[in-house]
């Protein structure tokens, strides 16, 4: 049942709307944004914020941010970071992030959604006036998915501000909203009652108590409506009506204990104690740490007393007393345990975080009794806030410690890299410089050829494309011609041959020029491929060389800076953890003390009631004896009465210390033996016990659990993180 209560709290919260998932509705284009969402969907707010913050920061620094894939998700990312910060309870930053959207140049629907979130944030932080002011800034179209939520929030704010007629109007407009069914009706009922329109208010509570609820949150609000209405009716002595309403509450829901208690009281208020015993007996068997159960443990014998079954009543009072004694001892041990710091250790257990119902599990931890009584406290807003802060601080402490180790590892890596690269690099650099100069030379040559070929396209130069052999031949011909010109003698045939050779040479060079030029271009192109390959290798080497240097240079300052920041943060976290832990311990001790005091009161009551029960039993016994016994046995009767008194007193004393019901049974048996009659608890229908139906001198003081008229927050959306969600449990339905 407690688990249900928590689940309910989780479901009812108005924390980031991740389950509805507007973030990936239009597809994903930026992988880092998707990565941030992956963390956020698991409730890993820290990692989600760190990732998205980095991504947004990089996006803002870009020269052309529109080309960045994140640009596609920018609206959602801006919201997202605010939402994640809310999830991580960084309200100040979340408020700033959302305000930036509100003030920014965004379309009306986007801006209005941001305003809604900002208003919700203000409202959660207890600033209804600011929240209302924010809502009044809405203009244009309100996005469909949040339209009802905006109206519901407006109603909540107005209700919190005491503007009941306006709040009632806001909730009235939402009566047909399917996702708010029950919640709007309940709040409308509360608003009308506060407006002093009692009958109208009850009508809406009654209606909210009869909705066809399928979801856990709708079932819970239906139960809550019935509980509130039922107790209102009980206050006015309308027991019969109250019973009908309270019987609508589910037996396994979070409000079932209080409903069972109230149902019993509605019977008791009409003198129907036998009927009252049915719900109270069920309740008395439940988890003993629940206040309603403890009260039922006194209510059951109270009802038996009213039915004149004093022996049974005494026995049950004794059992209650025994149980209260044990619980009070447990509470005492718990207080000591809390003061010894074990409570904080139990809260910070790693394995607990793996379970969504970890707060409930705390109650059953075998070696952590200090947590058993704190479920109620743990669902309160103040405690949850403090607890989450403490857990966040603990998580940060662990992260900081891990980062310090990471820095050690980084330094080790750098040291090893330096040790490896530093001796190698000078030789590598020397060889590289040599190759580099050769490369440059070849590149220059290639460039010259390219230029010449280009020039030949404009001004053909066949000579430039003559082959080596042709050049040699031309040289030799030129040499022969020079010799002849210098007065050498040669036959005419030889001169003709020289001229013919020269002509052939010229002919070949001139006619093959085009082909040669084409071939030269092909060769240049092939060379370009080789040069490109060379360039790639060159660039790769330069990058690798640069990476080698960068792998160990330039980190010292950064690491030193991080070390100092981590050390400072560690100190702050340690200090804050101590203070936050002290607050939690004080709250826990206060709660445990309050519960122990209450149990002590119950113990006193039970002790007194045992004595009273025996007194009444004796009286009834005496009266019965007087009526039945002949005059000669009066003396015997008196003795029997005294024996019963003695036994009863003894039993009462024993019960105060140990098992009362055993003592009571013993006493009753003794009395039976002495009087020769059946003990009171085994003869509930005897005429004597019915006839002696006098009111107890001191009634059993019972404290019904108060059900104040508090509005509830609607389940705007479901949340994924139960731990984060429980903060609002009390606000939502728990009070």
């Amino acid at each position, binding site marked *: 049942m407690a688990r249900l209560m928590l689940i309910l709290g989780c479901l009812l919260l108005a924390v980031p709307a991740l389950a509805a998932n507007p973030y990936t509705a239009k597809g994903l284009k930026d992988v880092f944004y*998707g990565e941030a969402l992956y963390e956020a969907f698991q409730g890993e707010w820290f990692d989600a914020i760190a990732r998205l913050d980095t991504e947004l920061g990089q996006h803002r620094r870009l020269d052309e941010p529109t080309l960045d894939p994140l640009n596609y998700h920018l609206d959602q990312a801006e919201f997202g970071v605010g939402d994640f910060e809310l999830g991580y309870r960084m*309200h100040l930053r979340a408020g700033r992030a959302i305000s930036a959207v509100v003030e920014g140049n965004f379309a009306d629907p986007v801006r209005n959604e941001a305003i809604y979130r900002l208003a919700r944030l203000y409202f959660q932080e207890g600033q209804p006036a600011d929240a209302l002011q924010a809502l009044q800034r809405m203009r244009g179209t309100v996005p469909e998915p949040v339209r009802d939520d905006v109206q519901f929030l407006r109603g909540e704010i107005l209700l919190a501000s005491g503007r009941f007629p306006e709040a009632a109007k806001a909730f009235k407009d939402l009566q047909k909203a399917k996702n708010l069914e029950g919640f709007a009706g309940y709040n409308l009922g509360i608003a009308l009652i506060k407006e002093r329109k009692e009958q109208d208010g009850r009508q809406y509570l009654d209606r909210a108590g009869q909705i066809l609820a399928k979801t856990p949150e709708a079932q819970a609000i239906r139960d809550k409506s019935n509980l509130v209405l039922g107790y209102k009716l009980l206050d006015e002595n309308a027991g019969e009506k109250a019973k009908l309403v309270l019987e609508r509450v589910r037996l396994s829901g979070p409000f079932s204990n209080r409903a069972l208690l109230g149902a019993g009281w509605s019977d008791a208020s009409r003198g129907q104690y036998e009927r009252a015993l049915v719900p109270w007996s069920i309740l008395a068997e439940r988890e003993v740490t629940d206040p309603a159960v403890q009260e039922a443990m006194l209510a059951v014998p109270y009802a038996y007393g009213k039915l004149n079954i004093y022996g049974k009543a005494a026995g049950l009072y004794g059992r209650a007393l025994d149980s209260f004694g044990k619980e009070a001892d447990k509470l005492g041990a718990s207080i000591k345990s809390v003061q010894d710091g074990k409570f904080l250790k139990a809260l910070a257990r790693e394995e607990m975080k793996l379970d969504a119902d970890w707060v409930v599990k705390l109650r059953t931890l075998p070696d952590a009794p200090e947590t058993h009584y704190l479920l109620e406290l743990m669902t309160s807003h103040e405690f949850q806030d403090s607890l989450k802060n403490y857990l966040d601080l603990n998580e940060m402490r662990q992260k*900081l410690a891990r980062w310090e180790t990471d820095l050690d590892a980084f330094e080790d890596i750098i040291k090893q890299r330096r040790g490896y690269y530093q001796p190698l690099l000078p030789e590598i650099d020397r060889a590289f410089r040599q190759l580099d100069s050769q490369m440059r030379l070849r590149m220059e040559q290639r460039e010259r050829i390219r230029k010449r070929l280009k020039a030949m396209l404009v001004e053909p130069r066949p000579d430039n494309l003559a082959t080596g052999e042709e050049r040699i031949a031309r040289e030799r011909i030129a040499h022969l011609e020079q010799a002849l010109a210098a007065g050498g003698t040669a036959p005419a045939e030889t001169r003709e041959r020289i001229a013919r050779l020269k002509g052939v040479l010229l002919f070949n060079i001139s006619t093959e020029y085009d082909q040669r030029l084409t071939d030269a271009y092909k060769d240049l192109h092939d060379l370009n491929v080789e040069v490109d390959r060379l360039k790639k290798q060159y660039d790769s080497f330069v990058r690798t060389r640069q990476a080698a240097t960068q792998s160990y240079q330039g980190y010292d300052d950064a690491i030193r800076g991080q070390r100092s*920041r981590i050390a400072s943060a560690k100190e702050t*976290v340690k200090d*804050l953890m101590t203070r936050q832990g002290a607050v939690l311990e004080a709250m826990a001790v206060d709660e445990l003390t309050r519960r122990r005091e209450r149990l002590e009161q119950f113990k006193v009551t039970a002790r007194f009631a045992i004595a009273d029960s025996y007194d009444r039993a004796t009286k009834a016994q005496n009266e019965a004896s007087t009526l039945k016994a002949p005059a000669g046995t009066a003396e015997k009767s008196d003795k029997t009465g005294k024996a019963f008194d003695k036994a009863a007193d003894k039993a009462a004393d024993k019960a105060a210390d140990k098992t009362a019901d055993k003592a009571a049974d013993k006493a009753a048996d003794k009395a039976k033996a002495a009087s020769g009659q059946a003990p009171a608890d085994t003869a509930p229908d005897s005429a004597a016990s019915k006839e002696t139906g006098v009111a107890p001198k001191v009634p059993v003081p019972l404290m019904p659990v108060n059900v104040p008229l508090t509005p509830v927050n609607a389940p705007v959306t479901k949340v994924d993180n139960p731990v984060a969600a429980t903060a609002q449990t009390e606000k939502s339905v728990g009070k």
Partner: protein
Amino acid sequence: MFKVLKVFVLGGVTLFFSMLPAWAEDAPQAQAAPQAQEAPKAQEAPKAQEAPKAQEAAKGQGKGLDEQVQEIKTDVLSIAAELNQLEEKLIYPSDTQLAVFVSVAKGEKFRLDAVKIEVDGKTVAHHLYTHKELEALQKGGVQRIYVGNVRTGEHALKVTSLGKTEGGSDFQKDESFKVAKNVGPKMVGVVLASTGIGSKPITVKDW
């Protein structure tokens, strides 16, 4: 004798109860009132249950403390961001960085139990999924399952997924791909889908 004593005791206890705030109204009234009226009187809500002192104190203290906690969160987040950058620069420089991201195709409801990633025949990641992680993937989140360093050029990537289909039968699928690593970080997205006929259970894309 005993009876006289009892009367005193009863009187004392009654007086004691009348002094207790919660019972102050109930006890005397109930004594005089008829039986049937006792119960409703007793049910009256106790006067506003006093808020625990520590909780009150916590409210006051908590406000300032809460703001300080928010401040340190901002500081630690900033340290985390810088450390992430430092780590990326130092351990996974962009020239050699290869990152593999896992996502689940939209609308898929199969249960993913584990994913194994092999690069060039070496297992580099083997992840078992929790319920929360699977839900996060199904909602559209993307998990960075592996980040490491490889040379530029072509690399073999093998992805194996294990789980249960929506119908409840076990499945194990693997696919092999070629990944070309150039200068600059390589982001490979692995998209997992159900094993329906005609659909590919594992596909890759560049992010």
